[in-house]
């Protein structure tokens, strides 16, 4: 039915699988690097997490996190790894939009675009 080079769902899924695995491995490697650096620098007592105080802005805003990475702050590097991790499923949805576009399936281009919009809203719009 489909020629081997044609875009079909199976082919999209294969690419998505590669993307997800690569994203997770990259994220894990960055988090591990930051974590080792953190432990090398912090010999003091453990941090207390028994009461919630929102993390400071340097760990909640993209630009602040990148600034921290630029000066090799260990915790900022961990946060960068987490951003790569969170971006992986977002990239997956974007890749599906491209796949459905190649398939000529307009309905699913639109459905995927709605999902992508919700994800981007969560990442970029906040108080």
């Amino acid at each position, binding site marked *: 039915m489909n020629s081997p080079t044609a875009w079909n769902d199976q082919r999209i899924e294969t690419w998505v699988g590669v993307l997800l695995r690569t994203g997770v491995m990259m994220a894990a490697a960055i988090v591990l690097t930051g974590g080792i650096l953190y432990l090398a620098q912090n010999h003091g007592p453990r941090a207390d997490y028994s009461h919630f105080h929102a993390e400071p802005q340097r760990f909640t805003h993209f630009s602040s996190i990148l600034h921290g990475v630029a000066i090799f702050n260990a915790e900022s590097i961990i946060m960068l790894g987490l951003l790569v991790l969170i971006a*992986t499923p977002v990239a997956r949805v974007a890749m599906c939009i491209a796949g459905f576009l190649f398939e000529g399936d307009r309905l699913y281009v639109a459905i995927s675009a709605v*999902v992508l919009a919700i994800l981007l809203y*969560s990442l970029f719009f906040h108080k």
Partner: protein
Amino acid sequence: MTALEFSLILFVSSIAAGLLGALSGLGGGVVIVPVLTILFHVDIHYAIGASLVSVIATSSGAAAAYVREGFSNIRVGMFLEIATTLGALLGAWLTTRVPTHSIGFIFGLVLLYSAYASLKQRHDALTRKPDPLALRLKLEGSFPSDQCGQQSYVAQRVPAGFGLMTVAGTLSGLLGIGSGAVKVIAMDQAMRLPFKVSTTTSNFMIGVTAAASAGLYLHSGYLAPALVFPVMLGVLAGSLIGSRLLVKAQVRTLKVVFALVIVALGIEMIVNSLRGTL
């Protein structure tokens, strides 16, 4: 306790949680949140932050293997992700409004239900009249079957499935879990999709659902880097080991043991929430 000792203990516990989550089929999030809150006295906001990030990692890490089997259905997944991501936004917003002990209480109930659902025998329902909406949305497919080559299927009761998926998304965002159990109910029970298709598509959806609440968690300051790092790496390692073992292990006996552990954690969460010690 020093930072190094604390991180090592967290790492080892998270490997165990990841193993348990993979072998029971419940996912790492359901196990790690009670471990962090009850054993390590971590505030539930930090706990669900660390858990949610681990959920994204395990879901994405496992997806490559599921894709190869050819059971997951990207159209069904993508369509239902509209429901789960909207639910996830609502759930994540609720965490900033709902008091801690209520989150703990709901978590305990979900644990008890998950334990029950993990033991229930599943049977593929007979195919009935397909939903016209499902045909219009192309919620159909086929999968390789042992008996008769390619077995085809069409989704039924799409609105019910969509509604349940919104609930699954809300629980995911509120509790920092993948809520795979509710996703499987939506596809398997409501939409009457084959069980194998439901479980693999559910796993595929978990990462996207969790990413929707992760943005709000990040901005609300739930992601504490030094806490998240040993937890995420541990749960990821544990679940990867677990999914390898799963092929060889005697599943039934293990499932009963794990269900008992989950029930114990659930009761503990509920008791702690009612006492106000969570």
